[in-house]
């Protein structure tokens, strides 16, 4: 590094050029805030609205109120549709998967039971000396009454694959300190003392074209390409495992509307289950794929494939550099224990205030 550049000066320049929030996003956030601040909103009313919004979000889904404020104006016109879509075979297969999804109802969670979402994920760690793959697994137990305690069991990451001796050394060094399994427990899924996790999905458009426009708008400016990032958004949303059937079908059809998406593997296996992989080659040498069982419409998972040598150090072409396999089941009990903040310590401030702290 240049002698004049100390590490903080350089860090301050990293991503210094991020885009300002769009006017739409700023207005939506303001509208959501004003709605929350509205004089008619009593505490109990707020709670009920929160329930009505029940859904899921990990990425790109803004609050239901914010969506409602902007949906009509902006989702109708956008990138979706007029630039073509996925290739014919992929679109056909996705159409069948969507139709099958609509026919299949989501499992019913009886009183006292839990929807268990098992996630087996792998991702790439690019260390200082080497690159390796590590696991990120978890089991989430969602109660029949979503107001009750959700439990999230997150075992420590383990080394999954290394690429040569430097990679092995890096992996061993990163993993030399044992870490305990983290158990997080929160009413309504408000893990880490934050807002409930189930927030916003039911407000997403079910019309595939409007949904795809929403996705393009939400992901604008991010990722390698707009189409690639739209695909990543869909993969990230699906892999949570709790997307309701109607939205899952709409996401499959939205996927069919993304130019460049094709069937990349007819026999893609993830964690022992085989399906069809739909993906899109990106200029950075990586391909995001979504793996679906096209006859049942069931999501098997998502994965990212390295297309060329040199994309990641010492990682051969064809390596799966990241993947998530998702399976759901109904169980009669959830593990005991767990705390609101898990490994992040204990809640600070008031409940739901969004703060956890550790005594360090």
């Amino acid at each position, binding site marked *: *590094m*240049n002698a004049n*550049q100390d*590490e*903080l000066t*350089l*860090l301050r*320049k*990293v*991503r*210094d*050029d*991020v*885009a*300002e*929030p769009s006017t739409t*996003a*700023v207005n*939506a*956030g*303001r509208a*959501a*805030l*004003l709605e*929350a*601040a*509205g*004089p008619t909103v009593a505490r109990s009313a707020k709670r009920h609205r929160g329930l009505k919004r029940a859904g899921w979000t*990990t*990425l*790109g*889904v*803004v*609050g239901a109120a914010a969506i409602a404020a902007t949906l009509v104006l902006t989702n109708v016109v956008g990138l979706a549709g007029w630039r073509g879509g996925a290739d014919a075979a992929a679109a056909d297969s996705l159409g069948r998967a969507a139709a099958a999804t609509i026919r299949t109802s989501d499992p019913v969670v009886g009183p006292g039971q839990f929807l268990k979402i098992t996630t087996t994920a792998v991702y790439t*760690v*690019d260390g*200082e000396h080497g690159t390796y793959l590590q696991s990120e697994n978890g089991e989430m137990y969602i109660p029949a009454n979503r107001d009750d305690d959700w439990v999230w069991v997150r075992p420590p990451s383990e080394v999954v694959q290394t690429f040569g001796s430097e990679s092995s050394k890096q992996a061993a060094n*990163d993993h030399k300190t044992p870490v305990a399994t983290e158990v997080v427990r929160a009413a309504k899924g408000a893990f*880490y003392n*934050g*807002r409930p996790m189930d927030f916003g999905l039911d407000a997403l458009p079910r019309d595939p074209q409007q949904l795809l426009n929403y996705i393009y708008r*939400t992901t604008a*400016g*991010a*990722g*390698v390409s707009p189409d690639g990032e739209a695909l990543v958004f869909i993969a*990230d949303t699906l892999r949570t495992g709790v997307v309701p059937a109607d939205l899952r079908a709409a996401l499959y059809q939205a996927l069919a509307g993304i130019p460049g998406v094709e069937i990349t593997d007819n026999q893609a296996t993830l964690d022992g289950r085989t399906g069809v992989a739909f993906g899109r080659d990106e*200029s*950075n040498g990586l391909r995001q794929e979504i793996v679906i069982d096209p006859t049942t419409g069931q999501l098997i998972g998502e994965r990212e494939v390295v297309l060329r040598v040199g*994309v990641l150090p010492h990682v051969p072409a064809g390596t799966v550099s990241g993947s998530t396999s998702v399976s759901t089941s109904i169980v009669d009990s959830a593990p005991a224990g767990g705390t609101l903040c898990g490994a*992040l310590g204990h809640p600070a*401030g*008031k409940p*739901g*205030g*969004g*703060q*956890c*702290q*550790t005594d360090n």
Partner: protein
Amino acid sequence: MSTDSEIIRRSRDSPAAFAELYDRHAAVIHRYASRRIGEAADDIMSETFLVAFERRAAFDESVADARPWLYGIATTLLKKHRRQEARAWRGLIAGGAAEQADVVQGSIDGHDDRLDAELGIRRLAAAIRRMPARDRDALLLYAWGDLDYEGVALALDVPVGTVRSRLNRARRQLRQASGRDASAEEVEHERESGRADAAPQGA
């Protein structure tokens, strides 16, 4: 102009006044979130102020500036986006050189310096990605949130001494990653380089 704490106090009786705080700080919260996780920053911006509004009674009104508090809320909300953040760092490590050049273009002259900076950024990104979350939070609040040590302490609700030790650890890792003298003590480093951006360390 009203201080942030005056706005918050006013919002107890007239909740809509809280929007003034949003207009004042939404952009910086978005910027911080966007640098960390990219596209989901819109959510973080919106949610931060919703959480802040709900929790406004807990705000310490003796602090005039609400930014540390808002950054703290945003930082906690970001924890749900671990994987996106990892993805974003990986983008910097593995992404095209052109993208990284953009990051430093205009601020660093000369081809060699720019190459150096690109390599430096790759190493920094790798180090930051591997850092314990608590050290990374402190570091990024300090470097990107433009908070001083005391501000970071308020944001994370930890003592200033804890912030100092987390930042020392984080910066030591960054220096190791960038090939600088790994054994140098933080104090010596501060003294040697006469850093203009060393934060006030009172309290």
